[in-house]
């Protein structure tokens, strides 16, 4: 599904190199976790996958279902099945959440040559997904993310993910800012989407989330490179010993 080969990238504005040769293959049906200290480039990688133009790829390539992802606009990537749950979902004043959801779902359907949703069909889907994620109708009536608490924003991201039914889900620290109950709700929402046709990349600092969303593969990212790859036990090891040993061993 996703093949990242020798990816080097820098900040477009000041040419600071952030990613220094990432290789990562994620197959359909798999869940990969990416862990790593602050500033190692996890969010940068997720932004590059989504198509943010603050970053410049200087070397390497990204294939998404065999297609050159770097040639695609952010909205084309989304329509092709890429979804990023943002670490910091932003508030968009004046854009009603429902209007936004409808526009996004229909834009993707249109890009894929599918019919637009009828209003009742759309409402039904939103209500169902919202109920599962404990998102209130009151939240949906507000402008997108405006005045949402940190946890509400994260739940709203997963709500969008459930409705858009992407093929590749990239979750950037979706667990940060969640209390235990919210963490369970969000994880259940994510797990519901697990399936043989879908791949997930879960970025996190903490083992905690991985108790709920159990990964097939765990990678450690440090200074823009994957320095170690293992199974879910690697996360437990990190939790116990911290990053220092692994990073030093790799250096």
């Amino acid at each position: 599904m996703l093949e990242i080969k020798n990816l080097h990238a820098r900040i477009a504005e000041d040419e600071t190199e952030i990613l220094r040769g990432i290789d990562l293959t994620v197959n359909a049906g798999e869940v990969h976790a990416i862990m790593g200290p602050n500033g190692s480039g996890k969010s940068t990688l997720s932004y590059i996958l989504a198509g943010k133009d603050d970053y410049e790829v200087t070397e390497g390539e990204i294939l998404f279902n065999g297609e050159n992802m770097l040639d695609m606009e952010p909205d084309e990537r989304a329509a092709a099945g890429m979804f990023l749950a943002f670490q910091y979902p932003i508030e968009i004043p004046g854009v009603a959440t429902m209007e936004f959801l409808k526009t996004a779902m229909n834009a993707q359907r249109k890009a894929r040559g599918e019919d637009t949703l009828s209003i009742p069909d759309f409402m039904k889907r939103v209500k169902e997904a919202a109920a599962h994620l404990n998102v209130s109708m009151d939240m949906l009536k507000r402008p997108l993310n405006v005045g949402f608490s940190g946890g509400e924003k994260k739940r709203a991201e997963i709500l969008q993910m459930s409705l858009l039914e992407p093929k590749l889900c990239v979750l950037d620290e979706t667990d940060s800012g969640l209390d235990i109950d919210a963490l369970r709700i969000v994880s259940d929402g994510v797990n519901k989407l697990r399936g043989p046709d879908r791949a997930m990349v879960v970025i996190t600092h903490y083992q905690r989330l991985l108790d709920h969303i159990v990964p097939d593969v765990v990678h450690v990212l440090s200074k823009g490179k994957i320095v170690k790859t293992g199974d879910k036990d690697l996360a437990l090891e990190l939790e116990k010993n911290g990053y220092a040993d692994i990073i030093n061993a790799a250096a």
Partner: protein
Amino acid sequence: MNANAPIRNTQAESDLIDRYDAAKSALAGSVAVSALRDSALGQIKDKGLPHRRVEEYKYSDLRAFMKSAAPLATAADSAAVKGVLEASETFGDLDRFKIVVANGSFVAELSDIDALAAEGVSVSNLADALSGDEGAQLLKSPKTGPNDGLVALNTAFVQGGVVVTVADGAEVSKPLELVQLATATGAQVVRNKITVGKSAKLRVLESFSGDTGYGEINTVFDYDVADNAHVAATRLITGKTESARLLTTIATLGAEAEFKSLGFIAGPQFVRNQQFINFTGENSEAKIYGVSMAGGRDLADQTLIVDHAVPHCNSREFFKTVLDGEARGVYQGRINVAPHAQKTDGEMMTQALLLSETAEMANKPELEIFADDVLCAHGATSGQIDEDLLFYLRARGIPEDEATTLLVLAFLSEAIEEYGEDDVTEGLEQRVRDWLAGH
């Protein structure tokens, strides 16, 4: 240059002087009205059209813009007027009364005079009134800018318009559209005097449609809002027109009164929408909104002076501008607070969104406060679309143009929604979408 010496007239000014001589005998009015017209023309002769060296027109140089002046539009054929009226799409199928002014003159037979009479609203021809004893009074506007050039131009040439009087206590059940249309090219110079009686309620829609070819529109809406009366006026200034749209509101408010207005600009090449709001009674409120969109090399100018001459009045001004191409936007807003106008509450905000690097916004909010116990604030912002917002929407599959539309609409809707005349909101928002799709 000596500011007092008469200027050398431009082609347009010479045209206007010729136009005046040719039209004078046909222009309505008593002897006193004629004298007012002569003196107003004298002002144009001596000072010229408003230009950039006049402070109030610093950013909107009408003198430079007007290369020539069209003759006045001539009387319209009734069937043609009907055709234009039926084809006009100003406020869609909103249920409303209509008063029609075509080619500068009131058209009684196409106006809902009887239905309005039943609601306590009388409508008569301004041209007739100008010939009567009170004629000159109609043109002696209370307070505008000092010798405002546009109002002078209007006084000199005014062809007609309507005198609308709402009886005390009348709450007009439907909005009243003042339709100003044209069946042929030519300048339209119109004045409407709207008097709203004590405790009356009136919602007005002001529109301009029809032949949008050569010929400027100069219209003055003179509102007299009596004690405890409420008025909301929605002005629609649209269409890809090449000639100037010169519009003036004068509103004089009694006590406990409310005057609300929204000036909506989308399309014409040169728009000056100016408002002079005068408080003459206590505990009144003015809420003035503006939504401007301009592209190409067009100009959208929203200018206003709110004069707090008495204590205990509130005013709120909220203006939004979206510019593309090499367009220019202007906001000049001044709140005057007289020395004894204590407890004035004035709040002014102007915000612009620039869709191109070459568009320019001139934001000039001003407070002139001579009282000490007042609450006045102003703010101005100007910026581009937030790239992070745009990226978020695009990352959800919304193409760039659609995402831009959502964000621009969100930006402009703030003013439309605060204005709060719900039955026009949707139509105006659709106009924003249309403008974005086709400007």
